[in-house]
């Protein structure tokens, strides 16, 4: 028998397990295996390898589930406290942006008037307007940074423990 026939059979043996083969391929392989002891050996070796893999067991560490459940409960409590706080921060930011957008023309005119009264260059009061506009984002960013810093410190402490 030609070498490429065995190669095809071996390819189909693997393909059957990995992704499945068509009926025509199944028939061809079945026919070939009836005639070829070498490929029967290859099919058995594949089956044996998979059987060994499937029967291999891993011992679970003691109380892994209960330890995890305990940690999860603590984290859930933490989230229960933290999340409403965050919701409040975001709501306040949102309300602040809406109010900012609605009052922007008046604030612009007010700052312009103050700028002219004080005799400061236009760029100064315009920058002041920019800061006023970005203030909610700056506050939210600062809160996020503090929160993340706190989290990474906690994580490092956990790792060290």
């Amino acid at each position: 028998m030609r070498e490429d026939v065995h190669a095809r059979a071996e390819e189909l043996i693997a393909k059957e397990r990995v992704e499945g083969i068509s009926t025509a391929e199944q028939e061809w392989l079945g026919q070939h295996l009836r005639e070829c002891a070498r490929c029967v050996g290859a099919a058995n070796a594949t089956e044996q390898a998979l059987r060994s893999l499937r029967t291999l067991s891993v011992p679970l560490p003691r109380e892994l589930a209960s330890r995890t459940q305990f940690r999860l409960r603590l984290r859930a409590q933490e989230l229960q406290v933290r999340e409403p706080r965050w919701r409040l921060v975001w709501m306040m930011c949102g309300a602040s942006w809406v109010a900012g957008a609605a009052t922007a023309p008046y604030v612009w005119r007010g700052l312009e008037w103050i700028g002219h009264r004080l005799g400061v260059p236009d760029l100064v009061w315009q920058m002041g307007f920019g800061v006023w506009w970005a203030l909610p984002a700056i506050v939210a960013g600062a809160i996020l940074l503090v929160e993340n810093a706190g989290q990474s410190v906690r994580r490092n402490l956990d790792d060290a423990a």
Partner: protein
Amino acid sequence: MLLATAERSTYLFSTLMADDKKTLAQGLRQRDPELLDRLIEQYQYRLFRYLLYITGNQERAEDFFQETWIRVLERGHQYDVRFKFEAWLFTIARNLVIDWQRQKKAQSLDALTDPEEGRGFEIVDEKAESPLHLVLQGEQKDKVQASLEQLPAAYREVLLLRFQEEMQLDEIARIQATPISTVKSRLYRGLGALKGLLAGGAA
């Protein structure tokens, strides 16, 4: 008649499955503690085995096991009912391991996950006895352990997902965030290498 009955029962089964998943998603969104406890118990063996296969280290697998469930708690609202829960769970676990490796070594994700570019995904000390070996040793002392240890972790991972978890190729591809062709290629190579190793050859 028989076909109609079969179709109806398939429909009923899939509806039940969909309902189960919806209930599961709702519970995850609400962070239902009882549901989470049940899930941890139900999936503990499979998740731990998966983590052990990809990290090759028991302690790390334990750490990642807990971190994975913390993520499930925090991001339960992200679970998509179209997919199996275990596929989502394994994706979270896998991403945590990859993030951790990224932090430890400044390497690209490809280099970490593709065994063709070096060993990849391995955190083991070459000189020390393999932690995976130590874990498996007590259970079975045959060639399979030794063979698995010699396989790159990315091959171990696909072999586990396909032949132990019995996942479909597209599910594995989604977990690994790779094309199906890559999954197939890893499976063929992994299977070939495992066969070779079991027969006494080299991977």
